[in-house]
């Protein structure tokens, strides 16, 4: 008798064929246990919010406008919220009109709708390497062919992007768009330099490019500085994605897209097909937060919290990491991108890390092409400061022991284990 564990198998669309259970995902089930210091999830420090203020805002929404808050809304999102978000963008120097915006269920739905709008199976998307795992998920679920362009400490290597563009043109192909996270990139923790932003904008004009600018972290530079958005440089060539997840709270699931009008119209129709409209309730809570509370002060508070955590992590990395390990030095947001010597595979090592009560995300998750095997993302935004030091110490002990083990197992064939700390001269390491 043949036993079928999935009787629906012949009915699935092609796009789900590659979706399978994953060992790494299973290990994250353990990483969530309190015994483990987890640098894995990119979770904001919601404990730094003024909860009484949030409570007051939410209570007022229900008390004064409950019937509207609990009703359906428009597919583009509430005009009042869109106007408030224009102010948030203005605070960062990103120009937009309220009518250019589509409210989404977090930045992730924005990426999904944009992928759905543009990607046919096999279409090429150029993306930073490494890039946001959720971006890869949204794009690959529409069967995009993601090609990575390397980064270094100044972000996307725009000269290499230009080479790729020429190479594609020579093949008679073009990328549907270029996906970038210019500020405090997830996972690399670096920002694109002003020179490169300007050059990217020029390339967009020269090569008739569309750019997907994903910007969750632009307001989280530790010293409060902001860099010009790509949208501010070439607005007609940019689809910009913003979110309240990092400057307020991910639980309200509020993001937005700013797009040229023809694209915006398509996105509104796609979103109506997907989920009709964003939640009025959470939109009104965010609206209330932005119109009645000192949200700029809250963002300052978040910056301080994350700066302290980053300082702790970077200090501890300097103290604890063995020679041969390199990492990026973020000046904002959540992430450090760490490269270990070849011979250590960070996917394999995760089990041992969890057994040693520390967790990270292995680098391969941030590439569509399987690279990143000797890299990892460390997110410092969520654990308390004391736990960060403790977690880095555990990771340091683990890597010291692993280097010793790898050297012992490989014997004379040890692959490049003696590399010294080399900074960021070429790429992000790896």
């Amino acid at each position, binding site marked *: 008798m043949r036993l079928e564990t999935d009787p629906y198998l012949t009915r699935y669309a092609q796009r789900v064929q590659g979706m399978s259970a994953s060992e790494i995902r299973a290990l994250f089930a353990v990483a969530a246990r309190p015994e483990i210091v987890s640098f894995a999830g990119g979770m904001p420090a919601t404990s730094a919010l003024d909860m009484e203020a949030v409570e007051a805002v939410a209570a007022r929404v229900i008390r004064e406008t409950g019937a509207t808050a609990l009703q359906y809304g428009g597919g583009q999102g509430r005009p009042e919220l869109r106007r408030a978000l224009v102010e948030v963008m203005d605070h960062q120097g990103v120009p937009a009109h309220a009518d250019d915006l589509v409210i989404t269920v977090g930045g992730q739905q924005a990426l999904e709708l944009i992928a759905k709008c543009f990607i046919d199976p096999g279409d090429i998307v150029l993306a930073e390497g490494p890039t946001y795992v959720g971006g890869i998920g949204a794009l690959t679920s529409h069967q995009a062919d993601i090609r990575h362009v390397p980064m270094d400490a100044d972000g996307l290597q725009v000269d290499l992007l230009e080479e790729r563009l020429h190479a594609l043109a020579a093949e008679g192909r073009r990328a549907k768009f270029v996906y970038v996270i210019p500020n405090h990139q997830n996972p690399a923790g670096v920002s694109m330099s002003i020179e490169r932003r300007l050059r990217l904008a020029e390339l967009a004009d020269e090569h008739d490019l569309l750019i997907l600018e994903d910007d969750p972290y632009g307001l989280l530079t530790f010293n409060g500085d902001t860099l010009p958005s790509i949208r501010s440089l070439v607005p007609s060539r940019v689809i910009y994605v913003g979110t309240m997840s990092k400057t307020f709270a991910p639980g309200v699931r509020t993001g937005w897209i700013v797009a040229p009008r023809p694209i915006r119209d398509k996105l509104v129709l796609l979103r109506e097909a997907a989920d009709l409209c964003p939640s009025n309730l959470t939109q009104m809570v965010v609206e209330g937060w932005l119109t009645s509370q000192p949200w700029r002060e809250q963002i300052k508070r978040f910056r301080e919290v994350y700066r302290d955590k980053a300082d702790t992590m970077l200090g501890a990395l300097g103290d604890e990491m063995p020679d041969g390990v390199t990492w990026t030095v973020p000046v904002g947001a959540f992430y450090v991108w760490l490269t270990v010597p070849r011979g250590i595979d960070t996917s394999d090592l995760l*089990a041992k890390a969890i057994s040693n009560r520390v967790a990270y995300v292995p680098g391969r998750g941030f590439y569509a092409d399987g690279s990143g095997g000797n890299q990892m993302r460390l997110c410092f935004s969520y654990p308390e400061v004391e736990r960060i030091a403790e977690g880095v110490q555990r990771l340091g002990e683990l890597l010291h022991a692993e280097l010793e083990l790898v050297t012992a197992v490989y*014997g004379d*064939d040890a692959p490049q284990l003696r590399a010294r700390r080399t900074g960021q001269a070429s790429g992000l390491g790896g």
Partner: protein
Amino acid sequence: MHGAGGDGTDGSDTTEGRTVAGSIAVLSGGISLEREVSLRSGGRVADALSDRGHQVTRVDVDPNLIRTLEEDHFDVAYLALHGSAGEDGTIQSLLELIGLPYTGPDVLASSIAWNKPIAQGLYGRHGLHVPDRVTLSQQAFREMGASAAVDRIADSLGSPLVVKPATGGSSLGLSIIQDATALPQAIVGAFSYAEVVLIERFVAGTEIAVTVLDGQALPAVEIQPKEGAYDFAARYTAGATEFHAPARLDPDVLAACEQAAVTAYTAIGARHLSRADMIVDASGTPWILEIDTCPGMTGTSLVPMAAAAAGLDVGELCERVLDLALCDRAGRPPEGDSR
């Protein structure tokens, strides 16, 4: 996590003449690397038992475990734990200490099966076919220069080779390598899961699993991944592997496999329920790889398939196992004690 499930009965329930516990703790989760799989097993067991009217409570294994088990006055524990602590005899020892009957093999049998190299040696002594193998500890590499001998592994075992942690399940840390150049990476990878690695000669053939329920073999389940090896993704992605129960083998070969599974079960002194994983080579010889003393009960797991082929649904199977656990409390010696 500690939540009630099921609509419950307030005492003993009698099914087909057997007495089944009134209050059942289904233990799953824990901090093992197989936590997620264990939670899935535990969920399926708890649902199946509560569907049959039992009072079931799911209990995660955490630092409050003993207090929870003692305060809630359970009659019996169903162990749906995978990985260290759940399968290596640790939890079994604790449950014996507090006098709570539990399902599956006892402390000694669990700890023997958990250590694959020891268990394989024992199977060999009982006349079973076990693949040629080498075990190497991290210490052997760190302190005794084992890397200088790695070349000889392929010389003596040939290739391909299977490299896996000496303990643990779900194919975690397992690699099948085609030649010796890939050995160091595979060994380092397996060391992420255990202090000792087991390197085996790869036996080509039909992969089967034989469930042994109270000393009797259930129909063998044949495992045929649609692509590549029966790895983690092939195990837990519905539809990724084709199964046949009974396995499509000659009756004589099937009988030999079932006999081998029962012999191995007896050799380690197992009881209640275990699953033997084997490869049947082209000549029909069953090669035993390991026994899982706390086998998976997920939607893609092998034991429920074997039970279904024997006409038992998951709830009935769990009831049988619980009944055996309660009988053992009444004084029945575990298998192997009399040998």
